[in-house]
């Protein structure tokens, strides 16, 4: 339970953090809230040579409206997101996901950027960011690029984040006024991470579902948007039968994980149940 020796650096600004990243090379790790990195270091699953602490960078903590997007700074805590009235009005599933993370202490320290960079397959964030068609802004000393969430998550603890890059912002398009969204979750009872987390966002007009976005976390080693479920409902009027039929298609296209708490078969079953519960909640 004691990490191996490492160099500790504290960055006062994004620029300084990026310089340090470039300077310390691939052996460096970014520390924000510390709720993913520090346990991994204590268990010696990760033994970085240098830790660059960005928790003091105030400019990375914000939630604001910027044109057609809501933008969230990478160092914004889950707790601040869970309390955001702006997000609650515009994209409720983001607030619901934030409120499901860990406990109060974790939410008060853990950050959205840290969680995304860690890419735990059972983390809460990916489902609602995928369903919300978020973009993730990555900065390095040579510039900035924006990646769609769907391209960002690449596998178990694996993302598109480069070795000298830092997540600086999460951008969410503000949905149409006729959009409703939710995040529902069946949790591992001890860790309270998601066994199945399902986000659904549906835009309706004239009684039919115009745009359906459904995404899962916890089910597979990579979080994913479930297009089979989306397509089954898009253009349909919401009825119990339609919802049931769409939910039945959940998790068909992915390799479902299994572990000692929830087998592959059981997780797959839960994915269908939670797809239906999410769709019902949004369409009720």
């Amino acid at each position, binding site marked *: *339970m*004691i990490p191996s020796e490492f160099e500790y650096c504290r960055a006062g600004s994004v620029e300084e953090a990026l310089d340090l990243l470039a300077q310390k090379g691939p052996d460096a790790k970014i520390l924000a809230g510390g709720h993913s990195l520090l346990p991994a270091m204590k268990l010696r699953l990760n033994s970085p040579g240098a830790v660059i602490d960005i928790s003091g960078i105030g400019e990375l903590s914000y939630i604001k409206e910027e044109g057609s997007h809501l933008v969230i700074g990478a160092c914004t805590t889950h707790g601040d997101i869970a309390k955001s009235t702006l997000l609650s009005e515009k994209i409720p599933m983001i607030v619901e996901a934030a409120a499901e993370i860990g406990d109060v202490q974790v939410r008060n320290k853990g950050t959205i950027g840290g969680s995304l960079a860690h890419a735990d397959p059972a983390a809460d964030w990916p489902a609602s960011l995928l369903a919300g068609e978020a973009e993730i802004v990555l900065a390095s000393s040579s510039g900035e690029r924006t990646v769609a969430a769907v391209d960002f998550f690449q596998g178990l603890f694996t993302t598109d984040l480069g070795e000298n890059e830092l997540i600086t912002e999460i951008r969410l398009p503000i949905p149409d006024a006729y959009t409703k969204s939710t995040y529902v979750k069946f949790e591992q009872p*001890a860790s309270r991470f998601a066994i199945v987390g399902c986000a659904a966002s549906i835009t309706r007009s004239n009684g039919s579902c115009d745009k359906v976005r459904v995404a899962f976390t916890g089910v597979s080693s990579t979080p994913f948007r479930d297009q089979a479920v989306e397509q089954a409902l898009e253009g349909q009027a919401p009825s119990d039968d339609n919802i049931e039929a769409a939910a039945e298609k959940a998790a068909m296209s992915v390799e479902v994980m299994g572990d*000692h708490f929830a087998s592959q078969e*059981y997780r797959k*079953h839960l994915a269908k149940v939670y797809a239906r519960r999410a769709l019902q909640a949004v369409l009720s």
Partner: protein
Amino acid sequence: MDTKKIKLPHGIPGHNLGQIEREVPADEPPAWPVNDELKHVGKRVKRTDAEAKVTGAAKFTSDIQLPGMLYGRMLRSDYPHAKIRSIDMSAAEKHPGVYAVHIFKNVVGMAQPADDDAAGEYPDIKFAGQPIAGVAALTTEIAEEALDLIKVDYEYLPFVVDLEEAQKPEAPLVFTTNVEQDDAGGGGGGDTGLKTVGNVRGPSTSSFYGGPRGDLEKGFEEADTILEQTYRTQVQTHCSLETHGVVVDWKPDNVTIYASTQNTKNVRDEFAEVFDLPKSQVRVIQEYMGGGFGAKHSLGNFGVMAGYLAKKSGRPIKLMLDRREEHISSGNRPNSIHYLKIGARKDGKLTAIQQRSYGTAGVGLGAGVGRIAQIMYESPNFSTEQYDVFTHAGPGAAWRAPGNVQGCYGLEQAMDELAEKLNLDPIALRDVTDTSEIRKVERHRGAETFKWSRRKLPASDPGLIKKGLGMAQSHWPRIVHIDSTAEVRAFRDGAVEIRSAVQDIGTGTKTVLSQVVAEELGLKPEDITVRIGDTLFPDGPPSGGSIVTGSITPPARNAAYKLKLQLFDQVASKLETDASKLAVDDGQIMSTEDPSKKIAFKEALKEMRTGQISATASRSDDYGGFMVGNAIAYGGLGSVQFAEVSVDTETGFVKVEKIVAVHSCGRPINITQIENQINGGVIQGLGYALYEDRVMDNETGHQMNSNFDQYKMPLSLEIPDIEILIVEDYSGRSSTDAYGIGEPANIATAAAVANAVYNAIGTRIFEIPITPEKVLRALNKV
């Protein structure tokens, strides 16, 4: 011996309360009336150490800091089965900041070969986590670095960690000779002198209630209905908030050990034996304790290691286990495969019970399913065969009602199923088969509070989320520890103190003792200073078997009574009366004949010829004698628990909505603390029923969930409304007539929950923990 006859309260108030006359030693105090007529006993007295605990002023073993203290850590095997060819400590020893190293010559807390002539230079490794060596260093960090520098040359051997795999003929053997274990877990298996075949030892067939009885074959022939089922329970690990550990301070003529222990006396005795010291030179202190549920009775490998490191370094050593070590090495509740065959007549009378069990305490002894099937119901024909199965896994240990919790889970589900087969209400069936008067009262008072009559047919609740109600009951013996002594002292300034080595493991023993002494001396509990948990004081009972209150409160009262008589002698002439005419009340000593002749208790102490007076008393035999030896009292500690659950039939998620727990413990001493203990027992029972499960990896022999991130304990979100009824049950067996509550609180919960789940969904789950996935599989939805 001079004796006298006294009349004591007998029976259950509101049911059959009366009096019983018993012949008792002449120096015993007069009988106390029932609690309603007492001032402090049986009341909700606040814990004496409540402030110290909530403000953090209380110092636990892990808080102890001594000048020059070093930190000890142990190297543990990563392999479940191996021989050690060599150990090279040289690099660790030279590591800067390391002051001492030590290699174990033998390890304790596990079964040992009966004839130990095959022992090599190093003990064979028999489980992943077995300690090998240790180091003492300036910091824990340096100690851990040094552990990394120890080179162990292993010869790897095949291993088995699964209960069923271990029973197969081709399974790798854990022991190749017959084995014994002095400090076995006590679950029902593990009798001495039994043979081992393969990895299977036993069976144990008898207990202190005797051996098999009657004729099984005849019993089953007489049955109208026969029920045969197999129940499975998991391994539950000890998860005390404070881990095992000690601080050893070795001075030239006195070793002081601060220990997180349930048994100060035993830690002293074991340390003295290992290091060949007189017991008078070993002092064990346990002032505050962060939990102990049966695994903290011994010095342990950590205590032995800390002793050697202290001796070698000449410095105090702190050695506390971390959470992973606690899970993998410090004891656990063994699992069980429990086969039951029960025959019953149409009217519910049982004709035969046949029981067989296999369980693994890893490298230890004492798995089993306890004695509850033998004793709780009337059945003329009975047999039990309880086998220990060895696996290459951490040793089991006593765990709050060893064996009986496993056994109750099976037996009480069987009774529930039998009731349904016989078309009887589960309570009505027990009224026919259970002769215990106290449990009968508990069943019916509980049923009324719980509103049992609203229980519906299985699976009849409409909708996806179904409610269910269930009940289960249990028995625990009244165990007494005769070697229990208390001393009461009074000082000239008015101070009164009680001393005993007995420890308070968080159950409230300190408060209970203050109440008993205050009641006897006519003082208030807050007037009494309680000094316990220190072997400088007279030996007390161990905190195990729910024996503390029944063992130490009678000598505490008797010592206070003797001190009171001394004081009466000293003030009688001043009050111009005879000492035999004096009594105490409300801080005064007064004449029973002329209340104007009185003196305040504090003023009376000023009249003493010496600065202190003192009286000591040891636990006398039970009034009317014991049922078995000088340890098992007549009667039992009954309990009945009711559970209400809701089950989500789409996800299998079980939520416990309400528990009604009805308990007895003779004369209750402190209602609030009894409720605290029952709450704790029920919550642990819920963990056992629904969540806790040590998961072993068959490929590596390691526990996969040796942390709270993966090993689920019930937390505040999972804890339901728990309503507690305490039934006073007087039997007139000692000067306090009080017994413990720790173990009974934990026994029936899992079975009550399982029966409620059956009532909700109409399908029985035969294996705990009842996880959501198991529920869905039982419903054929996965």
